């Protein structure tokens, strides 16, 4: 049994802050187990050594923002049996997708002294808009336990346990008091994908929606309630949905609906 070849894992970085890769490094106690079970073939945050493909599992962090990356992702896909995107950038375009709502050329001309050196796409887009993705792990950053769960699930040939219900379920099961009902704080929890362990509500903050939209999110009903009962302005609602996962379709549509009004 021990002669079995260890699966090769590669980590790839696109436009991102590296936070999701760091989640993997953050698995201090478990990392040894991971190294025992798999060969880490490519992991820029951990080592410079690059083992040649093909790879059994590729974890892709970051979004596609440049023409060069739009090509590179296809190479990654070709070299990978299983491609898993990790984090909000890779699954929804990330915070940098806020540019998608504005004129990028204008940004460039304002920010950079020599705009000619900048080669960028108009939009920051998720990996799934470019290549086939086998599994998407949500979060900004991803939850390290969920990351281990996904790797473990793929190694053991089972379905990962990363349910797509709301953050509310995590809040309630932790016994956290609802910040919307008890404090009147607008919270994206009811439309946001679980996985963070209800981090913000546990500290009496409203959910920022880092994990993106949950299954069948009813964003409109929520934003109406914010407006009518919690006194939120249109601007408040646009800002709430234009966060980490602004470009995920249900959130994007909701913010755009208020922009048009």
């Amino acid at each position: 049994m021990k002669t079995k070849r260890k699966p090769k894992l590669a980590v790839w970085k696109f436009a991102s802050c590296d936070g999701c890769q760091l989640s993997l490094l953050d698995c201090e106690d478990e990392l040894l187990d991971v190294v025992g079970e798999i060969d880490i073939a490519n992991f820029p945050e951990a080592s410079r050594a690059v083992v040649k493909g093909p790879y059994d599992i590729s974890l892709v962090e970051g979004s596609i923002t440049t023409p060069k990356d739009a090509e590179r992702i296809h190479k990654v896909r070709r070299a990978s049996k299983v491609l898993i995107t990790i984090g909000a950038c890779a699954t929804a375009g990330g915070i940098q997708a806020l540019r998608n709502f504005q004129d990028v050329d204008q940004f460039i001309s304002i920010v950079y002294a020599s705009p000619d050196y900048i080669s960028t796409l108009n939009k920051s887009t998720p990996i799934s808009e470019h290549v086939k993705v086998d599994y998407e792990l949500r979060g900004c950053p991803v939850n390290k336990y969920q990351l281990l769960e996904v790797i473990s699930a793929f190694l053991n040939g089972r379905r990962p346990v990363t349910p797509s219900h709301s953050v509310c379920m995590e809040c309630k099961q932790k016994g956290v008091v609802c910040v919307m009902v008890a404090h009147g704080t607008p919270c994206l929890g009811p439309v946001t994908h679980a996985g963070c362990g209800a981090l913000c509500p546990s500290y009496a903050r409203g959910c920022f929606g880092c994990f993106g939209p949950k299954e069948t999110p009813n964003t409109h009903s929520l934003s109406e309630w914010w407006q009518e009962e919690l006194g939120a302005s249109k601007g408040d609602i646009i800002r709430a949905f234009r966060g980490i996962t602004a470009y995920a379709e249900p959130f994007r549509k909701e913010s755009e609906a208020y922009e048009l009004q």
Partner: protein
Amino acid sequence: METLVSDVKQELPTDSMAVLTADPMIPEPFRVVQRKPETEDTFTLVLERAQSDRPFEFQPGQFNMLYVFGVGEVPISISGDPAQPQRLVHTIRAVGTVTRAMQKLRKGAIVGVRGPFGRGWPVLEAQQQDVVIVAGGIGLAPLRPALYHILRHRDAYGRVVLLYGARTPEDILYIKELEKWRGRFDMEVKVTVDRALGDWHGHVGVVTQLIPKTSFDPQNAIAMICGPEIMMRFTIYELQRSGMPNDRIYVSMERNMKCAIGFCGHCQYGPKFICKDGPVFRYTEIENLFGIREI
């Protein structure tokens, strides 16, 4: 008639719950004795208890929860012979993670078993009557134990009819047994497929079309149906057209199941729990739910 209700009753455990261990959520290890491919995506697993040789008694139509170590658990109907309780037989279609993992199990591998659960086919009520069995696709598997039972006590029943519809000739389950049954003079077996190439010499058409061409006494027959919900709906419709009253029709229902003992709530179908009130229902018990969308 040689076989009477009382004899048959002795053979069937009347209370499946009595044989369960203390914690019904803990799977018992069973060993794979044989894995037999049936069609491209369907296979049969023969299991035996790994830690004892206590017989595994069940009623035709009951199901087990099968667990693959580290992968997960799924409900699967028992498809073996109730008179051979040493061999626990399941026919499984590889469509999800767990069932695909089962397809790769080798002889000697261990799977977890919880069960048997649920209410089975009315093989006792059907005595002295004609029996019309209508199966679609993998739906033949849960009906096979009923057929074994009925054929073993053949004299206790009237006419026995098996109508079976599959997708293509390659998708027909238990071909050898079907041929054997078709060769019997005391039962009528009709097999049809939805689509076929020219080298198929059997029926082509939906299984419901076989009903008007079959001879049974609708007022004095019990129908047992298992297949996809749409197939069952149209089978019921054809049986009704043939003059069969609703209370003589039995169907086997399917819903998501996690616990199989009425605790998890997943398999609710109106007020029914498919896992313990079913999976087999007399049609009149669920008639008012059958047509409701998203119920």
